[in-house]
């Protein structure tokens, strides 16, 4: 298709255009030589180095209670303990990964972000494109002391290798109103029956939305006999053999969904609104304490409750990571370490703060801390850690996730 000499010419033009862009993009400040390799410093030295600095935390900003916790408790503690100023910038994870990508392509050595709240797809994308600093997790004392290394080894089946430090744990739950629905279904088979008996009263967010995608993954486990066989990386033959069962299941639901399955809510917030206004009878979320937070906030009725399917409920760990060009890596590591401390994890666990489940292993804590964690009152809408643990199943490797989202568009949406 191309003449012999054209590729080089095309490349040259493109490179010139690209160079133009770079000139406009980066008002290249002189590189601060503060970067005297934090790579080999001990943690105590990092703490000294971090004193008096600013850490810029980029994170999803759509949850008011989480924002308040970061701006309040975390910022205050970091200032008092380490003399670190924490600046939170709300940004969706895919957006900051793209920003980093542009900075990397533009050769920008001095970035604007120090710490990221990240996991799953976004971590995989960032790691593959070489956007992350590390490995650093093992350098954090709290990571070494309290984290169950085995459970934080993979992020959606993708090896973590120390390029992110655990931060919290989430698990998938369904939300319902006990006053409207006295006995919700307890398995995906029962859900199919329930949906057919209650046409128009159920739907799920449209994949690739995070929550909608998690819903179809769970259904995939349920209709194809469990999660175990998918954990060894992507197997096309296995996928081709089992995916049609999922399409059949979801297509059977489709005519009985909200709007007869012609439209799906765009994301979990849209579904929450439909549920809160009574257009549908169930919502779902990847945060076990989300319904309780919504009750406290006043948008869900007092009788809102959560349930899990006995076929299994997916859990995942969310993490913090440091960009390759973070200007303050020492401060970022100190902050990441603080977020893993028993104090921060306990404060995060309390439902009035956030209700996010701990990333540290409670069993590894001293007795007094274990008691404190056990004493936390999660509220009536949140299931107990034991009930959640009993059905917890790991996430699917992200190649499957991608294949399921694509397949859903081709086989269910159309």
């Amino acid at each position, binding site marked *: *298709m*191309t003449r012999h000499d054209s*590729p080089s010419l*095309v*490349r040259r*033009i*493109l490179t010139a*255009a*690209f160079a*133009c*862009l770079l*000139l*406009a993009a980066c008002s290249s400040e002189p590189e601060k030589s503060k970067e005297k390799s934090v790579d080999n410093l001990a943690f105590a030295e990092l703490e000294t180095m971090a004193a008096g600095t600013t850490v810029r935390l980029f994170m999803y900003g759509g949850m008011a209670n989480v924002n308040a916790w970061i701006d309040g408790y975390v910022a205050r503690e970091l200032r008092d303990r380490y003399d670190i100023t924490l600046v939170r910038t709300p940004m*969706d994870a*895919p*957006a900051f990964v*793209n920003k980093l*990508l542009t900075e990397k*392509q533009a050769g920008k050595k001095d970035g604007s972000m120090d710490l990221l709240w990240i996991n799953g*797809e976004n971590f*995989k*994308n960032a790691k*593959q*494109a070489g956007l992350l600093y590390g490995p650093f997790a093992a350098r954090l004392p709290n990571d070494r002391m309290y984290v169950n290394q085995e459970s934080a080894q993979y992020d959606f089946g993708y090896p973590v290798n120390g390029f992110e430090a655990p931060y919290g744990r989430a698990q998938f739950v369904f939300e319902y109103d006990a006053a409207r629905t006295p006995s919700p279904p307890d398995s995906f088979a029962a859900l199919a029956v329930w949906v057919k008996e209650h046409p*128009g009263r159920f739907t799920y967010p*449209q994949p*690739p*939305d995070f929550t909608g995608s998690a819903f179809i993954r769970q259904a995939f486990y349920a209709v194809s006999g469990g999660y175990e066989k998918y954990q060894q990386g992507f197997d096309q033959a296995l996928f081709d053999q089992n995916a049609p069962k999922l399409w059949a299941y979801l297509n059977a639901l489709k005519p009985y969904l909200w*709007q007869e399955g*012609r*439209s*799906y809510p*765009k994301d979990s917030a849209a579904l929450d609104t*439909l549920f809160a*206004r*009574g*257009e549908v009878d169930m919502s779902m979320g990847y945060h076990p304490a989300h319904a309780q937070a919504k009750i406290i906030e006043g948008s869900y009725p007092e009788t809102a409750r959560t349930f899990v399917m006995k076929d299994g409920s997916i859990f995942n760990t969310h993490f913090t990571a440091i960009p390759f060009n973070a200007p303050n890596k020492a401060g970022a590591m100190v902050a990441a370490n603080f977020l893993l401390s028993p104090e921060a994890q306990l404060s995060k666990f309390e439902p009035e703060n956030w209700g996010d489940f701990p990333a540290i292993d409670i069993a590894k804590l001293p007795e007094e801390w274990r008691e404190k964690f056990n004493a936390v009152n999660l509220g009536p809408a949140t299931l107990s850690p034991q009930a959640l643990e009993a059905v917890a199943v790991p996430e699917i490797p*992200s190649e499957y996730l*991608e294949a399921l*989202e694509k397949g859903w*568009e*081709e086989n269910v*949406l*159309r």
Partner: protein
Amino acid sequence: MPAKTTILLRLAPLAIPFLAVFCGGLVLAAAQSLGYFSPLPALPALSADAPTLSGYAALFHGLFPASFFFTLYVALASASLSTALGAFMAYLVWGLPGGFRAAATIYKIPLILPHIAVAFIILILFSQSGFLASVGHALGLVETPADFPALLYSGSGLGLIAAYAYKGLGFVILLAYAVLSRLDRRLIAAARMLGAGPFIVFTRIALPHMAQALGASFIILFLYAFGGFDIPYLLSESNPGMLSILTYNLYFNRDLANRPEAMAALTIMLLFSAVFVALYARIASRMKNTERKL
């Protein structure tokens, strides 16, 4: 020629950012759609030196074609609706006595509302748990919210068209009214005296006078509805969905390996918009050769 250099230099503050940012972005998007500058240099299939059309091929096997025609339909329907209604209402306002004309400036409300606010208004009014459904329920017209006709998210694009049409209406009235205010009212009096009815007066005098302004506003509204993001973000159907949402999902919510596909979608949208403007300009110039082109 020194004069030319001076002009170029004077243009530079405007031209350089335009060339670097806008054209640079364009070239980069097109290049990425062909597989250059892939964000994943690690993947051999994507770092090919020769251009690859696989991004475009993937688009045409996916949801893109249906989405393209749906977006076209929504944009054409909403722009036509605003232009037609706007022309008529501008004419009505122009015909009002002075005092009423001042009061009629309420038509400017949708002009100052942001698109996202218009989308919320439509959502609050027309959803099945919305204002109209509640009124219908209170009056006993509908029994449960689900019995209220599904105007939004039903696959018909009605919500999108309503939002764009309402948002565009004020814009058309503003432009058309400005043109009409330069129209000599005595022309109409003369036509009336010669026996023209109100319909003839509108179609033969007012409309031709407004035609250029209407054409320009149609094209602006069409292009905005074709590429806009905020209204679809709240009101888009799932299948087929609006192109902007499809592209957003490809770009942000998918694996980086899909980047050529996302860029291909952007490139096609841009090319289409350019072709549309060119086509339109040609038709317009052919229709009235003597008049100034758009």
